[in-house]
């Protein structure tokens, strides 16, 4: 996983609340057995509408998604994170994220920056005025900057550390393999096995 410290790019406003993972990546796209190639499915049904924001040529190449509250609700599919990343997004900004989505994002290296709804609105306005405005998301300072706008964002401290160190989860856990083995020795005998 690449380390994440600060990112600068253009942003897309997604003026919708309660964007569930079925919208981010509809189920029909989940059948692949690899981890790449999910960009075609991102917001697939909305993208059929030529007016949809991602279809606007001036938002091409954007790497930051600024969404309404309750982003990523619904199914736990991690493909939602992969789809956003495969499409090119590095950061999603919203006033509230669904728990599982936020967790999946941290693990996959996609930053979910939580801000008050006013900041979202301010960013939406800023992008509306100038779609090419550069937005910087500084994970070290936990700050979003663009033009005159400077806003703090919240992110889980552990996720922040991992993103900044670019660490793989399993590797961290396997440092505790002895503790796992010890734990297994004292599990009650009545707990079931599947074999």
């Amino acid at each position: 996983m690449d380390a994440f410290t600060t990112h600068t790019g253009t942003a897309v406003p997604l003026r919708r609340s309660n964007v569930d993972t079925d919208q981010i990546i509809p189920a029909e796209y989940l059948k692949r057995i690899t981890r790449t190639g999910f960009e075609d499915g991102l917001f697939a049904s909305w993208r059929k509408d030529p007016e949809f924001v991602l279809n606007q040529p001036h938002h091409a190449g954007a790497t930051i998604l600024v969404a309404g509250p309750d982003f990523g609700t619904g199914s736990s599919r991690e493909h939602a994170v992969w789809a956003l990343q495969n499409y090119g997004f590095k950061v999603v900004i919203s006033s509230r994220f669904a728990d599982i989505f936020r967790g999946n994002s941290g693990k996959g290296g996609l930053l979910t920056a939580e801000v008050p709804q006013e900041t979202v609105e301010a960013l939406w306005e800023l992008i509306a005025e100038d779609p090419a405005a550069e937005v910087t998301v500084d994970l070290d300072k936990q700050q979003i900057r663009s033009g005159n706008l400077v806003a703090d964002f919240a992110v889980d401290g552990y996720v922040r550390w991992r993103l900044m160190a670019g660490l793989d989860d399993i590797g961290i856990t396997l440092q505790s393999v002895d503790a796992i083995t010890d734990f297994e020795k004292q599990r009650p005998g009545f707990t079931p096995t599947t074999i």
Partner: protein
Amino acid sequence: MARTLAEKVWAAHVVRHGEGEPDLLYIDLHLVHEVTSPQAFDGLRVTGRGVRRPDLTLATEDHNVPTINIDQPIADPISRAQVDALRANCAEFGVPLYALGSIEQGIVHVVGPQLGLTQPGMTVVCGDSHTSTHGAFGALAFGIGTSEVEHVLATQTLPLKPFKTMAITVDGELPVGVSAKDLTLAIIAKIGTGGGQGYVLEYRGSAIRGLSMEGRMTLCNMSIEAGARAGMVAPDETTFEYVKGRVHAPVGSEWDEAQTYWRTLPSDADAVFDAEVFIDATTLSPYVTWGTNPGQGLPLSASIPAPESAGDEVERGAIERALEYMDLVPGTPLREIPIDTVFIGSCTNGRIEDLRVVAEVLRGRQVADSVRMLIVPGSVRVKLQAETEGLDTVFLAAGADWREAGCSMCLAMNPDKLAPGERSASTSNRNFEGRQGPGGRTHLVSPAVAAATAVVGTLAAPADLPKL
């Protein structure tokens, strides 16, 4: 210190605790299916890791298997690739698998409890958000993403931050004709799809104690639709009765030992929850959803709401969008909405008790000409049980379609789909846009309402049907 059920189960599984770090939690049971596992196994191969505890892992094929002609190769090439990948991965890593055609195959959340693998006090995970179902046994059970699936396969643990706890107390007796499904839709309508965010819900109170295990599973299953990570019900005699004698249940002195432990699990009387919700069961009636998230539900006797009734701009927009997608007009009584397809099934309501309720309504009646009705048992065992009881004869005589086990039209990854614009009454758990097929419109309902709707052709409860 007084602790809640969730806190006790959590504490019993902490492998490593460090200040400011997530706890490393041991996982007792890891359920696997074909859709969210291929990339996880792929990851193991890439990093040269193995499956630490195949004996605590169980795979089944459910999400995109066909529900007809299951003796033939799966027609859809991508579904077939996923199923083939699961079979190859399970063989390579030594994970037990109940494949299509096995008598133990079925929806992962139906299979676990049915085999007695889901027991009180356990930690259960699966790459599927409705893993919350298993909380009905007093297990801490929650959905995980694919990289967490890989993590559990490799280490049998997960690093997790403790959840907050919310008590949902439902007192009083549920009125006749009101089921766990109606209760859960009413709870979600009350607290909203984000209301449970960050919480483990514990359902308690006399109405919950009065529910069967099937009903508790329905309730816990849909906790995720309230935004919660998990739902739980404290184990009691009903739980023990259900677990006892199942294939993987403890026997002899281990049964006694287990039961002694399980009895220590219910929340202490003076345990403090981070949030509390109270519901009077006696005020409830059959609930149906009218919109595009499970929180957009109302009593069947109500009418389609107007956007003007919304509390704020965001909600108003949400109602407008939902009405447009659902093609509904404010003020229309819910009972007047015509339905094209009725789907009975899913891990929410695809168990034997649900099928019995449906059969009771359909017995001696006919599915309306305008309606196609699909009945999909949650597992092969459920199917066989239904056939032993003659329920299939009732379904077929009424004009319903009786299928093989699987997720089917719950998420429409197999050929069971709604056509664009088609409207369903469904016993599943999600009414999101396109969930049951692109452009399809879903009303979530209980099995009883689904069956009555199939007969009438518009949303209806059994009480609306003429007496036979």
